[in-house]
């Protein structure tokens, strides 16, 4: 009886001690959240506010807020925060049409010799540089930036892989190398589908459609562009929808389906008009006029 009692008491004490030690070890070994400096908190708030302004289309104020966040991040030398805000700022400035300022913002990451920016952020900055340069038609500059982006992107599991292929396909298209563009867009489509990046998948499809159109495969082009349109509509991307519609108008026009082309162009005009893009509206209206005049 005494032995049983003795054994029970000891084992319960030992179990309690073991439980307490386990609990203490688990609690102590969990890393406490890092301290947040007031500047970092303010920077995060400014950045979040800027993003909400960006989503509302208030680009000027969004740029001001990203600049504020950038200064705050610089005050605590937070490389990650500095890079994120510079890249965000470049997107806003590009939307505002100030490509020079956008490139200058990105150059602060790419050319910096004092701070140690994470390689992933440098790759993103180089990728953004390539996008802006391809928009301005600077194929050579964009190719150099694209090469840097590839070098900095981690070889295993580069999240930018599909995006980089899309830009490269775009550059081939600008170089009139439509066969090359077709190959690259096909590769990009595969990668983007694998990565589950719908927006980039639609971009790949659009590039594929444009290349197919240039190579004379109108039906195939129409099929992939309609796919792109469906994705863009699901993602509520007004500007992309407009591009898809006008590209479909061009495909229909190439097939001689004047009325069908006019319908696509009219739809694109309606979207551009609602988005407040007067320049595109004027351009598309000219196209429709020319189309109908030719048809008569």
């Amino acid at each position, binding site marked *: *009886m*005494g032995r049983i*009692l*003795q054994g029970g*008491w*000891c084992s319960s*004490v030992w179990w309690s*001690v073991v439980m307490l030690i386990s609990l203490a070890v688990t*609690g102590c070994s*969990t890393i*406490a*959240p890092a301290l947040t400096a007031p500047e970092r908190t303010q920077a*995060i708030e400014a950045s*979040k506010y800027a*993003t909400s302004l*960006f989503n509302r289309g208030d680009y000027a104020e969004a740029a001001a807020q990203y600049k504020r966040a950038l200064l705050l991040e610089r005050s605590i030398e937070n490389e990650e*925060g500095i890079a*994120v*805000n510079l*890249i*965000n700022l470049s*997107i*806003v400035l*590009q*939307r*505002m*049409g100030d490509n020079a300022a956008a490139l200058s913002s990105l150059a602060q990451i790419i050319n910096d010799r004092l701070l140690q920016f994470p390689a992933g952020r440098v790759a993103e900055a180089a*990728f*953004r540089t390539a*996008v*802006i340069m391809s*928009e301005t038609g600077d194929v050579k500059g964009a190719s150099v930036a694209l090469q840097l982006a590839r070098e900095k992107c981690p070889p295993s599991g580069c999240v930018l892989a599909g*995006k*980089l292929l*899309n*830009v490269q396909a*775009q550059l081939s*298209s600008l170089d009139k190398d439509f066969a090359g563009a077709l190959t690259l867009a096909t590769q990009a489509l595969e990668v983007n589908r694998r990565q589950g990046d719908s*927006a*980039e998948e639609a*971009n790949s499809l*659009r590039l594929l459609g*444009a290349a197919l*159109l240039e190579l004379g495969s109108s039906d195939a082009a129409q099929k992939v562009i309609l796919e792109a349109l469906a994705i863009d509509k699901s993602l509520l991307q007004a*500007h992309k929808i*407009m*591009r898809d519609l*006008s*590209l*479909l*108008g*061009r*495909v229909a026009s190439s097939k001689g389906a004047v009325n069908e082309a006019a319908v696509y162009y009219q739809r*694109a005009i309606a979207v*551009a008009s609602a*988005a407040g*893009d007067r320049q*595109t509206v004027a*351009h*598309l209206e000219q196209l429709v006029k020319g189309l109908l005049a030719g048809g008569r």
Partner: protein
Amino acid sequence: MNVSTSLGLKGAGGLQRMLMFTLPALVLVAIVTVTIVWKQELIVSRTPIYVFTENALGVARGMPVKVFGITVGAVTDIIIIPGSGGAKGRVRVELEVKSEHLQHIPRDSRARLLRESVVGQSIIEILPGEGQERPIARNEVLAFERSKSVGEIAEELNHMIAPAVLQVKEFVETMKMQGGEAQKSLQHAATLLEELPESNRQLRKTLVAAEKVLVHVDGALGEVATKAGSTLDSVQRTADSVQRTAAGVETAMPSVLGKIEKAADSAAQTAVSVKALADGAATRIPVLLDSGSMVVRDVDEIVEGAKRSWPVRNFISGPADLRLPLDSQEAARPIVKDGRR
């Protein structure tokens, strides 16, 4: 069967093992206890002193006691001292003051109940005396007074304004009274003004006659007479204008005076309403504000503490991704040229 044997405590060795188990826990408990006692200032030396007051309105336990604006203690007890031998009962308020601050409170200091701002927290402020007396000691009594509340100030203001408002009202009544001195004076003035043009006309006739008689007088005198005539015309026009103005004033005066009286009445009513409002607000708003801010502060601290404590912190996600989505076809605006970018 021996109990110690049954529990496995065989002699000194068993006791030693038990101490090895329990000693760390006891040391931990002792450290925590000492920390709590130190943090809560439970072993800070405090000295009770007292104030007596007619009533304990506005005084509450825990209310801070300040000297030179620094909190040196708190109200710890409020009890009623029953009256005896014809003396009225009174309230005794116990203030516990940190002993280190007693040197700043001479015996002739006064305690005063006041509010830190119009809607701020109530405190007891000790106004140090001349400093020539020795510092106050344990269980000694300070003189007590209350500062004026917002309601009392409003009441005083009302008392000061009331006679002036009354005088204005009396003045207005006098002005309005039909057949009163003011009305008579105005009427006399009007009569005088009415008669002035006629006098002027008669004077002019006389002058014209005089001019005829003195026609032979030299040109200089004739010119003077002409100038006098023109001056008199001007005087007549002025008199007419004054008469019209006086008539206008006489017509408008009762209405204006009526408005002034109404305004005075309205001002008096407003003062009464403000006083009532201030009385109500002075009682409720500070309590509400104090409670509200304390609750918010407490909740903030609790939430912050909970967020930092294990294991809650493991379930709280880190800051959101602040990056804008990267798009390989980002553009300033849709550049659509025949469907191509």
